[in-house]
């Protein structure tokens, strides 16, 4: 079956310029995302610089095993996403569907484990608010740590949910044969977004889970 109508939109000179414009647009969006998360990383930097011991103590209440597994899950999901892009570039539809599906499953796995963690925090009274309870004198800075923990991983999880939604959309479109070796831009751009969300977690893991693990 021919690739059908050209994917070229009229205000672009050719497909390559169109693709480059899409890429530039996505990268600039990712820079705005860097600044978006950057604000929270800034708050973390101020908090941890001011209360290093308390942050360390609070950090030890996080489940390193779950956090580590989730890090692995996201790294592998970036691999499967990159392979999905590769499949779309080489016109392998079934492989594209397979890798998109895998990436989606890994994303859902991450979110499930995150849910398990959050539930555990709730049961141990570590959710900031009236029910918060932390032993020792460092209760207030510890609550600050957990506020940052929930804000940063929560914002990240929200990005994951959006990513999963995008993947589901891509999967549906791919099943309908919308992506070919000549036109796979949505797959590639979604890949950029997915890898970016992975990079955010790459920093969140050591900063939140590995503060004072040697004690």
């Amino acid at each position, binding site marked *: 079956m021919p690739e059908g109508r050209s994917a070229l939109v009229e205000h672009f000179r050719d497909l*390559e310029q169109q693709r480059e414009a899409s890429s530039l647009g996505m990268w600039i969006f990712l820079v705005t995302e860097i600044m978006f998360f950057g604000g929270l990383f800034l708050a973390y930097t101020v908090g941890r610089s001011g209360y290093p011991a308390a942050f360390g103590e609070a950090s030890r209440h996080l489940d390193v095993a779950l956090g580590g597994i989730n890090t692995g899950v996201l790294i592998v999901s970036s691999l499967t996403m990159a392979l999905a892009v590769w499949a779309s570039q080489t016109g392998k539809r079934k492989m594209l569907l397979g890798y998109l599906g895998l990436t989606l499953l890994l994303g859902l796995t991450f979110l499930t484990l995150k849910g398990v963690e959050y539930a555990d925090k709730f049961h141990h009274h570590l959710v900031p608010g009236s029910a918060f309870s932390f032993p020792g004198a460092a209760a207030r800075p510890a609550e600050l740590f957990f506020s940052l923990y929930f804000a940063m991983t929560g914002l990240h999880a929200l990005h994951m949910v959006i990513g999963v939604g995008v993947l589901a959309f891509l999967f549906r479109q791919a099943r309908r044969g919308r992506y070919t070796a000549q036109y796979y831009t949505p797959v590639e751009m979604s890949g950029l977004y997915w890898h970016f969300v992975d990079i955010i977690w790459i920093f969140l893991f050591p900063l939140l889970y590995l503060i004072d693990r040697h004690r």
Partner: protein
Amino acid sequence: MSEHIVPRKIYLVVCAALLGLTFATYRLALLDLGPWNVVAALTIASCKALLVTLFFMHARYGPRRTQLVILAGLFWLGLLLFLTMTDYVARGWLGRGA
């Protein structure tokens, strides 16, 4: 289409490196390196981010302008962190108020 197709083997090697670095960052965190723990953790995280950006996100094979955008983003983030922290430190505001 002049889009570069990255050999799958490179993706696999990068993934293995990322998982290895994750394990390394965990092991290093178990050692007491004093102030160097943070340095080590951030250095490893930056290496991982660099690998993802260069190979998974194709920055290595893309146009110069992509690199420019990335550097611009990092510059602005650096400015945000640096200037705010100098403000806090100069005023002695770290550690007060919580």
